């Protein structure tokens, strides 16, 4: 028979032993009544603790269970209104930048394609009718080019003053 077990019996009772250590201890315990008796004592204490300790720890009293309001007032980011779950920062920045870029492209495209209508009333006061007075600008459905836009603007200006200037005697 091997020498008697000592700390191994405590470890055995607490379930600390490794598989190999437990196998060796079991082999000894099968042959040693004294160690079996000691093991039973250790196991009795462990069982007593297992049964008693949870009962010694009471559930939280109502003052704790209802204490969230006190806790919340001590947490800085909960003092303000709760925020809705948001996107991660990098996603939000990316979305904002892409939206801004799309808006910029849309504004530029509109400026590129848009040709202001030239109506007859715009030139009604003109003393010298020009070709543009009867010019009907192309709508954006037509392909507009910078050349046509420059052409229109060159027809629009300079315009003569709408009043007749006469020499005073």
């Amino acid at each position, binding site marked *: 028979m091997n020498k008697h077990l000592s700390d191994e019996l*405590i470890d055995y*009772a*607490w379930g600390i032993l490794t598989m190999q250590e437990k196998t060796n201890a079991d082999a000894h315990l099968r042959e040693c009544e004294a160690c079996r008796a000691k093991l039973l004592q250790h196991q009795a204490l462990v069982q007593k603790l297992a049964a008693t*300790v949870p009962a010694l720890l*009471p559930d939280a009293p109502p003052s704790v269970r209802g204490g969230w309001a006190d806790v919340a007032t*001590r947490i800085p980011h909960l003092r303000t209104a709760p925020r809705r779950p948001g996107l991660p920062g990098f996603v939000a920045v990316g979305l904002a930048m892409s939206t801004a870029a799309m808006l910029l492209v849309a504004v530029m495209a509109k400026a590129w394609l848009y040709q202001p209508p030239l109506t007859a009333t715009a030139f009604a006061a003109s003393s010298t009718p020009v070709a543009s007075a009867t010019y009907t600008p192309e709508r954006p459905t037509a392909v507009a080019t910078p050349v046509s836009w420059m052409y229109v603007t060159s027809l629009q200006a300079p315009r003569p003053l709408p009043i007749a200037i006469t020499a005073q005697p």
Partner: protein
Amino acid sequence: MDDSDLIQRCQSGDAHACADLYQRWCSSVYRLAYGILRQEQDAEEVTQDVFVYAISRLRNYDPDKAAFRTWLYTITISRSRNKLRRKWLPTVEISEWEESEIGDAERPPENWTELQAERVRVWEALGRLSPKLREAVVLRYFENLTYPEIGDILKCPIKTIQSRVRLAHAELKKWLVESG
């Protein structure tokens, strides 16, 4: 809703989710703190401190590194130790403890006296342990935590935890035998 969903909502600043998280865990934190501090008022203060700290820093919590329970109990142990350092804890009078209502409701009346006396002996014996040994015993049995879990909570190697359990067992056995 499981803990991970609740924690994600808390991390995004949802106050209602934080309240739910508190309700879900406050009793466990209180029981652990009470097991170490052995005073209701101190355990209550520590419970509040634990949640103020935990929810304020929840955005730093990484579920890949530790289970939420482990993280929360680590904070509880740390706060309880701080509390123990700050004040000298008076021992609980047996008469005062006997008048308390700990866990009596589910016990049959005929066993009350014997059971209560046994609990008083265990409670006193636990109180005589050093805080580190008491932490190991309380963590082992208040929620049947495993040794690796206890090691994670106490930030100790498993061998250290096992050594503390062994020492605690020897001392408890001696005192409980002495007290009858």
